[in-house]
């Protein structure tokens, strides 16, 4: 091999090792945000809400951001529900985390949304996670993609990174999951209206019409009691 061949070989080895080191140090999903916390504490947080505080009906949705049915519900049904029920003051909608153990990045995605929530952008991040739900199909580490979502949601990405690396909301998410267990949440999404479990059985994807009928019925019942 001549001198130029040796030079090429040396450059190839050095750059190959550099790329390998870069990929290895890429971090991936920070363990603090991706796994269950060692302890659980109640920080008093009970979920982000949409709608007015005095709405006659409160719907609580236990969701998993990696769950395809949750994504379909969020993308297909929620816009109509927002327009017809939430924005009209009939319903307040509360979102609670219920990361399923079968999903690799459930906690991580819930944590991404909570870190966005710390900057007042929970719903923007939730929209990104659901509207670009292809990430859940690949099985690949979505941390880089989520940073892109954070940026698209208008977050301070540095603060988001710190939040994710610290696993700042891991206990909050686990508390929400345990709360769901105590309420017999048996999958995602699971809904409760004024404390009563809805759509019991195998039906996981109610429509906006189902909710409209339900809210009308609850409202009519409370009127007739007066």
């Amino acid at each position: 091999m001549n001198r130029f061949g040796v030079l090429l070989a040396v450059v190839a080895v050095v750059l190959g090792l550099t790329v390998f080191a870069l990929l290895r140090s890429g971090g991936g999903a920070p363990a603090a945000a991706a796994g269950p916390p060692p302890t659980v504490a109640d920080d008093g947080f009970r979920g982000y809400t949409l709608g007015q505080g005095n709405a006659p009906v409160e719907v609580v949705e236990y969701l998993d951001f990696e769950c395809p049915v949750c994504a379909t519900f969020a993308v297909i049904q929620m816009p109509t529900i927002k327009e017809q029920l939430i924005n009209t003051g009939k319903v307040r909608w509360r979102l609670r985390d219920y990361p399923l153990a079968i999903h690799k990045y459930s906690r991580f995605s819930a944590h991404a949304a909570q870190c966005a929530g710390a900057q007042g952008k929970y719903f923007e991040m939730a929209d990104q996670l659901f509207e670009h739900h292809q990430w859940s199909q690949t099985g690949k580490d979505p941390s880089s993609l989520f940073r892109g979502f954070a940026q698209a949601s208008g977050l301070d990405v540095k603060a988001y990174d710190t939040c994710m690396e610290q696993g700042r909301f891991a206990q909050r998410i686990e508390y929400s999951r345990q709360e769901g267990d105590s309420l017999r949440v048996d999958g995602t999404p699971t809904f409760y209206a004024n404390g009563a479990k809805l759509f019991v059985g195998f039906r996981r994807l109610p429509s906006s019409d189902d909710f409209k009928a339900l809210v009308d019925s609850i409202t009519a019942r409370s009127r007739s009691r007066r």
Partner: protein
Amino acid sequence: MRYRQAIALLALVGFFVALYLWLHALGYGGAIKCGASGGCEVVQTSQWAVFLGLPVAFYGVVGYVAVFGVALAALRQVALAERRWNVLLAGLTSVGFLFTVYLTYLELFVIHAICRWCVGSAVIITLIWIVSLLSLKSPATRTGLGASPQPQGPPA
């Protein structure tokens, strides 16, 4: 010959830059190392990061491998005197350069984010392109680093 060596060396460096971006696009290695600006994430997760169903970086990998392979082939003793290799390299690198100009335009004026790795690759392909154009003007038989002169046997 020095021009072809320079093209081979630059193509090798460009190959590793494109390889890193491609592996990252395939989901290896987590967050891209790109500084605090987040520009790489924006570019890599934009709709323009995929071209004809494949990550753009994949075309970079293929392009650099092609340029590197042709440059090595052009460095063989039997090919050193042949000008057509310079033409082939200039043609190949012109395609790569034009594609890079298009991608840089997207970064600056459509995506409004700059990916440092993409800029690195753009600089490399631009240098390769300039060198390939210069090689068209020069005689192809110059010898350079590591070239061993053709052994001259006694006249038959």
